[in-house]
């Protein structure tokens, strides 16, 4: 066998393997849609998305997932409010300010945070945060939006921090030197040069962190409280989409309306995370092309 033939074989082997993973992914999507779409023989898309009542086991059942969508969005937004400042500022500290020893320690801790199984964080929310919330604010339950947002934020911080950190490291040293040479202080250089230059990467980090939060299942199943209703306060319980799917799939009869409704919920969730990823991709591409020049 010549070297040239070997090259061709190696090339094809890699091609086949990458094709297999794409193929499997494609099958999952096809399956998701095949099991979800039949729901719309019973319910209109509009009633499904904007329906206010999720009573899938009643007779007649009601398949409105608006409360679930709101639940997902609200915990995602609140967790971002906590995780974005923590993640971005810790990245700035690690990449620009921290002395080398501190940098190593912080990076190790954040990696550890990323490695914590979500079920362990869920325990933490149930056993520590929930009773504390319940007592402090005199609530009927500590399993609510605040609790879920805090735990989701803890999960999103490593994603946001590590991707932001990469973006900050990628800012050319020449920019920093130019800034210092013009008499800028370290803080001025960080605020006016480094962060703006890394903004596309930081935005990508934030969106991927949010995507992580919206798709997370175990945490919201354990600590969001599970009430399929539009919340009126941040101390109300909610039932985000992944929690609903995970909790109910075991009970739903095969290919019943409820079963199809859960798959259709899965489609909505899939489209939302897909949108998050596309936005992240778009931002990083767009700013790359123009060299983030308009900032």
């Amino acid at each position: 066998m010549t070297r040239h033939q070997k090259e061709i074989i190696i090339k094809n082997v890699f091609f086949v393997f990458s094709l297999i993973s794409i193929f499997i992914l494609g099958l999952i999507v096809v399956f998701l849609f095949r099991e979800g779409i039949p729901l719309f023989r019973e319910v209109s898309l509009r009633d499904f998305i904007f329906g206010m009542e999720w009573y899938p086991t009643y007779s007649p059942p009601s398949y409105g997932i608006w409360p679930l969508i709101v639940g997902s969005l609200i915990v995602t937004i609140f967790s971002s409010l906590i995780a974005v400042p923590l993640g971005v500022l810790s990245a700035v500290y690690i990449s620009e300010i921290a002395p080398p020893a501190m940098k190593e320690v912080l990076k190790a801790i954040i990696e550890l945070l990323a490695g914590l199984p979500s079920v362990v964080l869920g325990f933490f929310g149930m056993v520590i945060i929930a009773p504390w919330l319940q007592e402090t604010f005199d609530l009927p339950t500590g399993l609510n939006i605040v609790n879920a947002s805090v735990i989701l934020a803890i999960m999103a911080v490593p994603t946001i921090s590590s991707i932001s950190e990469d973006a900050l490291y990628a800012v050319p040293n020449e920019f920093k030197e130019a800034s210092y040479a013009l008499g800028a202080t370290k803080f001025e250089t960080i605020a006016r040069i480094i962060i703006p230059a890394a903004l596309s990467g930081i935005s990508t980090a934030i969106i991927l962190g949010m995507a992580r939060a919206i798709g997370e299942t175990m945490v919201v199943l354990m600590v969001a409280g599970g009430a399929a209703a539009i919340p009126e306060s941040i101390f109300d319980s909610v039932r985000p989409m992944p929690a609903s799917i995970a909790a109910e799939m075991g009970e739903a009869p095969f290919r019943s309306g409820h079963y199809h409704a859960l798959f259709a919920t899965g489609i909505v969730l899939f489209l939302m995370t897909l949108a998050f990823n596309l936005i992240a991709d778009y931002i990083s591409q767009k700013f790359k092309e123009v060299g983030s020049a308009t900032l």
Partner: protein
Amino acid sequence: MENDHFDTEIIKTKNVNFYYGAFKALTDITMNFEKRNVTALIGPSGCGKSTLLRLLNRMNDLIAGARVEGEVLFEGMNIYDPEVDPVEVRRRIGMVFQKPNPFPKSIFNNITYGPRLTGTANKSDLEALAEQSLKQAVLWDEVKDILGRSAMTLSGGQQQRLCIARALAMKPDILLMDEPTSALDPISTAKIEELIDELKKTYTIIIVTHNMQQAARISDKTGFFYIGKLIEYNATEKIFTNPDVKQTEDYITGRFG
């Protein structure tokens, strides 16, 4: 020149040693730089000329493990005195780098970056300053209609003149230039050299260059460095025609380096 140097000197180093960690990069450098003159620093790679340049506005502070001994007197004040804020030093001693390094911002925002830091916020003041600086850097005619465009869209030579304009907008006393034309084509290089000739009427310029013809063309005095030592410091004409030290002559004539 030696007899009236007390009137004309603006910055001088006194017995300066410089270390990167354990490595001694400069040994016992004592050098006067004269006002409204162009001083060229030449020598083979690694001889310490860039290190000396960056030491004059405390840019070496940014390198971990860097250490200075001796004094650098700027208008009589030791800029390495613990009381001195390096930020203030850099506002008065500007720098232009080897590779053009405009910020990924508009041309206008590049020029006004420094003045805004020092508190100039009035838009018409900033506009006037931008025009003045760009004219000084002979870039105004080329960019006056595109001030809002990204500086990254300019050519390399234009970017470097923009960086000079950006430094001039701070109205510095001294302009340090670290091989400012080494990344440029011959035409852009000629433009920058003309510019330096014009700027020396107002500013004191200290330039590091690898290009000996350039040093001969543009400078009044030249310092030749070799392995961290100042071998010879003389009027440029003398250095290039009749140097005092044999080593200088060998370098100038291309026998080593």
